[in-house]
Each structure stands twice: as C-alpha cells, then as structure tokens.
C-alpha cells in the first residue's frame, strides 16, 4: 500500500517536488511542508472558506483536496498575490484601505474568492459580490467593509485597464 507519494506542483510560481502522506490535505501540506502559513484552516469540512486557494485558476477549498490530488497543478496562495517588486495587489490594497480586515483569519480565503470574481466579472453588483463571497465566513466585520473593498478593487482595476 502506498501511504506516501511524490508530487510535483507549482505554488506561487515556484516549482516544488515533495513527498507527501496520501491523507494530508492540500491546506496542511501548504502550511506544514511548504511553510506557507498564510492559508488558514478553520472548520476543515468546507464550510468556513478560510482555506480557499486558487488551483489552476479556480478557487478551491484546500481542506477538501488532498495534497496528492494537487500533483501537476498550479496553485496561488495569499503569499503569491504581491507582484515581483513586493507591491500588494489591487485587491489587497483595497482590503487595507477599506478596513476590510479585522482579525485577519478569513482574509486569505476572502481575497482568493474576490480575485476569482473580478476575473469572471470585472464590474459586479453588490448582490453578485455578496453571492460570490457567500462561502467565506467572517466573524468580525459584518461583511460591509469587505463588500466595499471588492467594489473599490473592481473600480481600481477597471481604471487601470482603461489607462
């Protein structure tokens, strides 16, 4: 029986080859083996959304995916959102400027979901934002500041595209 397997994957643009236990979740792998502790695990059964990362360009719960299943994938976590000069992304800046972060536990997942939304829909309505973020629970903010941050990021991104 194979309790462990070799996997090769890309995380935040960097290639890794690692040996993983087959029962290890992608979230635990990112935190414990790659030491990318920006991905937070909350409920570990897919409800809270804190562990959401981007897998091949689509948001996924890293607690509901095995690390072995990530073999050959391209993953982006919160650590991969800055540009090469270390500048925050548009969405990170908008979260900061709109006070959309309080304790910060939900933030990595919120950012991942919000970035996916703007990729599909550059000008979402408030309802569309709330629907897309419905799978990410925040226990501090009451969501209002987060929705405003996504609106601000959308506006900033549209302005950038026009320039």
């Amino acid at each position: 029986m194979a309790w462990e397997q070799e996997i090769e994957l890309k995380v935040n643009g960097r290639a890794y080859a690692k040996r993983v236990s087959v029962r290890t979740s992608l979230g635990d792998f990112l935190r414990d083996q790659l030491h990318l502790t920006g991905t937070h695990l909350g409920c570990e059964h897919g409800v809270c959304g804190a562990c959401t990362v981007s897998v091949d360009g689509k948001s996924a719960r890293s607690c509901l995916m095995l690390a072995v299943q990530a073999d050959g994938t391209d993953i982006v976590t919160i650590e991969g959102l800055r540009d090469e000069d270390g500048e925050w992304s548009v969405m990170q800046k908008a979260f900061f400027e709109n006070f959309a972060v309080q304790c910060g536990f939900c933030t990595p997942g919120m950012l991942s979901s919000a970035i996916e939304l703007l990729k599909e829909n550059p000008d979402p309505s408030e309802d569309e934002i709330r629907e897309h973020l419905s799978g990410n629970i925040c226990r501090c903010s009451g969501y209002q500041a987060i929705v405003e941050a996504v609106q601000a990021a959308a506006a900033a991104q549209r302005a950038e595209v026009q320039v």
Partner: protein
Amino acid sequence: MKAPWFDYQAPRSLADALGILRDAGEEGRVLAGGQSLMPMLNMRVADPEVLVDINRLPDMDRIEEDDGTLRIGALVRHADLLNSAAVRERWPLLYEATTQVAHPAIRNRGTVCGSVSHNDPSAEHPSVLATLDGTVLIASADGQRELPAEEFSEGMLTTALEPGEMVVGLRYERPPARTGSAFVEFARRLGDFAIAGAAALLTMKDGVCERARLTIVGMGDGPVRVPEVEDLLTGKTLGNGAACDVFEEAAQIVKASVDAAEDVHVSSGYRRHLAGVMAKRALETALVRAGVAA
C-alpha cells in the same frame, strides 16, 4: 480533524478503477470532487480502506446533448453545467438548481454524479434527477447497468449502488414542449443546505395541465416525489386564475404527506410549513414559465 489512513489509488483508466473497486469490495470508495466525501473523512464519519480517485480518468468530464437527451459524465462539475450554453438554454431546471448548489469554490470541484451518489435529502441534484425522470448509469468490473432515479435512491445517504460499482454518468430526457419548470429552495444563508425546497415541471396545453412533476427537497430520506399532487394537477385547468385554489390544495397535500424532521435550525412544524410554501412557489413559477398566467 484530519482524515484517517487509507490506501490511495488514482487509476488512469475506467477498467483499472473498476478492477480496484471490485477488489476493495465494501471497503472501496470513489473520490470525485470530494466536496461531500472529504468532509466525511475529515470528521471520520467515513473510514474506507481504499480511496479510488477518479479525477485522472479520461473523457469523464463530458456534457453530451443528443436529440433531447443530456448525458453527463462522472467528472462534470457543478460549475461546468453553469458554463454550458446547452444546459443554460435548454435544461432550465438543471441550470436553475445548479445555481443554488453551495458556493462557487464548492461548485468548482463538486460533481453532479457525486451529489447524486451521496443522496443527501437537502441536495439539489438528486431531486432534479427524480423530477426529470432521469437515469443513473452504473459500471462495475462485471459490466454496466442503468437504474431510474426512483430506484437508485434508497434512503438517507443510501443508494442502490453495490460494492464494486460506481456511477459513471447520468442521463436526462428533455420534457415535452410547453413545459415550464422551477427549482426553489430556502436556506438560512445563501448556499447553505436547504431547509426545504421544491422542483416542479408543468406541461400545459390550452390552459390545461397535461403532465406534472413535483419533488420536495430537504424532507424524509431523499428526494420525495409527490404523486398525489401530480395526479391532482394532471387534466386540471390551471389558466385564467384557476391555478390559485388548485395549488393551495397541492400545498396542503405536501404539508400533510412529507416527513419533516426537526434539527438544530428548525422545528418539524416549521419545515413542514415551508415545504408547502416551496411547493406552491415552484408550481406558480413553473406555470408562468409554461406561458400561462397564474
């Protein structure tokens, strides 16, 4: 919590997958999108010895439409249905139900066949399959077989699937012309499991109902078809305002017949009441969509 130990297999062909499942017998479980099975593993509600990951099987992610029949493979994700022009344009009940499945990140990975195989009474896809008189396509190392939706669902999280078998696809037949459909559900929070819901199909001709289907979501042990209501509606005039009283009677039948459980969210009475409200709302919307003013 963390998942228990299991032997992980990721076969590259269906024949290999079925061979592993045959050898594993009752200890084998298929892992597709993992949006139900992984939580069960993490909470240790499920503890299979062998996990057969089918994500690397070829051709299982196809959505094929042919002359009024839709066939979807075992790796078709909820998001794939939402991105399919064919589904959006010609399979409105399936599309509308899928928009209400969980949240975007779950829809990106979770599969339709997985939802049907899991058979949670609150889930959308088992009820859609029942409402459309769909068919479950099953394979094992010994061959293939098909089961109609109503025979596949056997109870709470229980299906007719035997050890060694897996669901390889689903087949839906398009309802006749002049059919309106609706899928409605109610949850405390957008995307949560439905407390109650309903799926309805009404085929109308000259204001008279030719064919009716009604399935209640979130009650009993699985998707609950309500033949009493279907019989009541068939042959009835529903146009020119006649629907109001008939649908009220339908809602009363639903409320009297469903097995409404109490849980941490709601009392049995509230869920029962909601089942009636959802049934009426689905029927009214389906009627309007069939081109008849309610």
